[in-house]
């Protein structure tokens, strides 16, 4: 199966799979430690109840829901980038498409966990299936996310099948017997015959298209959970496309950061060049403009209508949450536009820093959608304790947030130990990279 070019690439990537350096071990132990702290926080939450979080009768959703929306958005962006670039056969995508596929599935597995953390009575979860109402957006979301997970898993498997077969056959790599057996099983006997290639390409094309469509539907359903309510701040007709744009925007940021990290860790400068950062950065710039437009449109409509409840929300945003609002809707929008828009600023490091700002800004954006809206309720709750009118997050929620991020990083790290982070099989057909000046 592995031809000459494959073998050359596999020889280059073999150390990444064969060996784990001391620094990588320390990194993995650190991540495991953070996840362990997360399990302790989970134990505290289960044993003492949700009183250890900041969620109360008024503000019933907090950081957990924000994390759920954030991770689902990142997953969608990964699906869009990998699916779209696959369908368009863009040559430049080949070195980065594996990272996008990993981001898709890992974020998709982490996101729904935060819903489970938010639910107080997990023993009642089966009721969702036994007594679920088709009319409920929650039911739609459960169905959509389950379908999306299956689809993305199938797509990822199709995408890595050729690489698994290549590693199975490559003798120049030292692997333990269990790992070699695992590759043999997962390779499904793929040897690259014309018939097998044809079937694989067809299935991958179909799944690439489906993954894009499913991701749009999933994220729109997630948006509709908010927008079909009458809650001021949520009841908006543009929430569906607004969420989709924001999702891809945040996912581009994560994609750039992941590219930068793997480029540094595995010394992939000749594969992931400035061109890749600029291309994903331009996508980020376009999405920043769209995101800014949707945000402006949404808030202008609310402000101009001068409805009492909308005014309460906007006053709260510009009063208590002023700096967070500026970060999310000004800095997060303008920074990538400026950095990527001006050619002189378009360096790998600058684009990565603006991507980090975008990630933070979009997380804050989700926070501003969820929490201040609940703090300015549509129907005021009578006799509510003053302490419960405002949301104050607790250490339990932050530690579990950190654990989710750590799990994401750990899964990416461990994944790169099983499958080359660069798509070896597709790279064999790639034209030589352009003679770009490497700025970092």
């Amino acid at each position, binding site marked *: 199966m592995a031809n000459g070019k494959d073998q050359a690439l596999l020889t280059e990537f073999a150390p990444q799979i064969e060996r784990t350096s001391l620094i990588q071990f320390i990194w993995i132990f650190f991540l495991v430690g953070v996840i362990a702290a997360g399990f302790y926080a989970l134990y505290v939450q289960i044993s003492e109840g949700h009183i250890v979080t900041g969620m109360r009768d008024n503000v019933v959703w907090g950081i957990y829901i924000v994390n759920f929306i954030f991770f689902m958005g990142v997953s969608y962006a990964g699906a869009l980038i990998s699916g779209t670039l696959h369908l368009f056969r863009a040559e430049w995508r080949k070195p980065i498409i594996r990272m996008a596929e990993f981001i898709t599935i890992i974020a998709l597995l982490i996101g729904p966990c935060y819903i489970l953390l938010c639910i107080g009575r997990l023993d009642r979860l089966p009721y969702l299936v036994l007594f679920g109402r*088709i009319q409920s957006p929650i039911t739609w979301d459960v169905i959509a996310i389950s379908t999306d997970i299956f689809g993305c898993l*199938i797509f990822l498997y199709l995408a890595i099948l050729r690489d698994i077969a290549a590693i199975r056959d490559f003798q120049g790599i030292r692997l333990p017997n269990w790992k070699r057996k695992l590759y043999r099983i997962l390779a499904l*006997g793929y040897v690259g015959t014309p018939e*097998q290639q044809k*079937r694989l390409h067809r*299935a991958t094309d179909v799944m690439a298209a489906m993954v894009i469509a499913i991701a749009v*539907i999933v994220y729109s359903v997630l948006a509709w959970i908010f927008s079909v309510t009458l809650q001021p701040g949520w009841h908006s007709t543009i929430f569906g496309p607004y969420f989709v744009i924001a999702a891809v925007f945040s996912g581009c940021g994560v994609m750039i950061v992941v590219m930068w990290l793997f480029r540094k860790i595995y010394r992939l400068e000749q594969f992931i060049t400035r061109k890749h950062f600029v291309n994903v950065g331009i996508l980020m710039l376009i999405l920043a403009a769209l995101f800014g437009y949707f945000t402006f449109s949404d808030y202008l409509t609310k402000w101009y209508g001068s409805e009492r409840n909308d005014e309460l929300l906007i006053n709260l945003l510009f009063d208590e949450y002023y700096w967070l609002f500026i970060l999310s809707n000004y800095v997060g929008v303008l920074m990538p536009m400026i950095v990527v828009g001006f050619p002189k600023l378009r360096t790998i490091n600058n684009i990565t820093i603006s991507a980090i700002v975008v990630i933070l800004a979009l997380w804050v954006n989700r926070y501003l959608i969820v929490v201040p809206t609940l703090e300015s309720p549509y129907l005021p709750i009578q006799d509510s*304790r003053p*302490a419960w009118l*405002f949301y104050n997050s607790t250490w339990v929620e932050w530690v579990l947030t950190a654990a989710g991020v750590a799990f994401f990083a750990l899964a990416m790290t461990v994944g790169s130990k099983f499958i080359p982070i660069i798509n070896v099989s597709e790279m064999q057909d790639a034209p030589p990279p352009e003679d770009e000046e490497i700025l970092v």
Partner: protein
Amino acid sequence: MLWSVILLVFFSPILSAQEEASPEEAEPVDTYLSLLATYTSNDTVVLLASLYIRHGRERIDLQNAQIIFTASGEKDQVEVGRAFTDSTGSAHIKVPLLNPALPADAEGMITYTADFEGTDNYLSASEQFISKPARLEVSFYEEDSVRYIRVNAQQHAGDAMEPITGETVFLFVPTLFRPLPIGEVSLDEEGTGSIEFPMSLIGDSLGNITIVARIDENDRFGYVRGENTCSWAIPKHLFSQDKPTRELWTPVAPIWMIITLLTLLAGVWGHYIYAVTELIKIKKSASKEKSEEKDWSNYS
């Protein structure tokens, strides 16, 4: 330089903690006490006190604190009871108004006082509530095939009762979360008021329903409550449907919604099945290739 900043950040909480006051030096905290007196139709008064402290914007209820309730008039003062606050910081007692009669002033107003004597950690607090005893009676009657709710309000005047005139009494039906308002009556010169019984009310399976009459936040009488039960409501079981309609809020979804969902799911899962089928065929073709190679090698 960087390391000195990092060390400063990590160790500053330890350094600043030493400046905090030790527990022995903490001053007693201010407490807040509220008191309500509600008169009921069997000539009792329910005294409800709430004790709490403030911590920033937060209100913290104090549990297990003893509240002493007294009633006083012009000259006399009697202790009417003591109670401990529960987990919500509330303490309540029921006190009969008569036998013996509670002390009152010349106008018949009784001053109720709730006292918290304080502890080493909490300052004492006291609150008063002044009101005149009153009674609300709810009754039902039918006239010309129309059903009515009658409210009769009386106030204590020495040993006798006098009608309360000119006040507004609100009528409610107790429900799961909040009382359902069903109307209000204005009291005439005889202290009586009537409204038509709402025929759309739903009771229990026998049609029984409780009607509550209330005077709230009155300058003279404070809070007065009376209730009574009748069987004029619609029995609950009449509303069971054999075949619910297809709506957004009923157990059965609209047809178009079911069809749309099934169509989308069929389309998506159909593609998944196609992809998995292709994978199975890839595996089968590999097995076929292997067996053909074996045949050739055996043949040769």
